[in-house]
């Protein structure tokens, strides 16, 4: 485990992956596949991952700060936190969409009825006039 080559290798992989993630999210946002407001949490956490993968002592410092003995588990903590926050954001968005969806369908139902009534009235009055 203390083999510096292996340690370096995992760091390179971490750097490549986190920069890849950052770029991927950025690209999706640029192409408007993700709205800016929904990409913020993703971007925020991918930047954190980039920073932590480059600056190795940063993770150690953070682990010490929150009282984690084995520094790599601090990474999992941050990861889980990121996933939680993003999923909670999804739940909020889904609930809002459901509510809006409901209102739209109600409006559509009411409008269809009104349109039918207007149509019927106009054909009736039309036949009376002619």
């Amino acid at each position: 485990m203390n083999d510096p080559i292996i340690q370096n290798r995992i760091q390179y992989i971490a750097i490549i992956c986190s920069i890849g993630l950052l770029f991927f999210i950025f690209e999706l946002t640029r192409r408007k596949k993700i709205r800016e407001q929904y990409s913020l949490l993703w971007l925020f956490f991918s930047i954190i991952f980039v920073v932590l993968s480059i600056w190795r002592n940063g993770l150690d410092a953070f682990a010490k700060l929150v009282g984690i003995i084995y520094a790599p588990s601090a990474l999992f903590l941050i990861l889980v936190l990121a996933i939680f926050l993003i999923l909670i954001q999804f739940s909020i968005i889904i609930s809002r969409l459901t509510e809006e969806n409901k209102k739209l369908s109600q409006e559509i139902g009411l409008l269809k009825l009104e349109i039918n009534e207007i149509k019927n009235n106009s054909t009736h009055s039309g036949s009376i006039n002619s």
Partner: protein
Amino acid sequence: MALKILIIIPAFNEEHIITNVITNLHKKNSKWKLLVINDGSTDKTKEFAESTGLAKVINLPFQVGIGSCVQTGFIYATNNNFDYAIQFDGDGQHRVCEIEKLLANVESGKADVVNGSRFCNKNKKYKPTFLRSIGIKIFEILNSILIKQKITDNTSGFRAYNKKAIYFLSENYPTDYPEPEVIILLGRNGFKIKEIFVDMNQRSGGTSSIHGFYSIYYMVKVFLSIILTFIRPRIYNKKQTEENV
């Protein structure tokens, strides 16, 4: 001017019975306006309901669930300035002859909402299964404590509402097994609820939407909703709305 009365009939896949429901209501009192809200039925409910020519039919573009379905009726009633509304199931479970009993109690001003209950009478024809009767009892106790009004049949979908309640519910109506929540919501916001005994028919078709796994989900969901509704601040400002109505 005569009072305007709307019968709100939520219907999901009720082609076998919806024509009967509509014609029976019309026969009973042709002055009642009938509004069928077809909750995205996949059968011929829409065609059968429309072909009677006796009811207005609102067709929702897809199934939105009973709560939002009924709420559409309240929105319609508000937009068209109805004085009273009756919620009447499209599955033939409710009896036309009981409507006037419900109506009389809102019309007299004794209550804002009248709940048709299968249970508030010793003469019990309706026998729920053991587990269901426990659930019913839990909600009875919970709701009665929280709103200080005794409500025995929290899951009844047979109710009468006055204008104040119609207006309120058009803006606030829970979704997903909404009936017990509506009681809490109304009680919490100062509406007077009265319960009277009604006889109901056995289901002529279809099964209860609450069975198996869903009964657990139902209990947990409704329990949570009731507690939350109780905790949330009141929505309804009595003085304000009375001035408007």
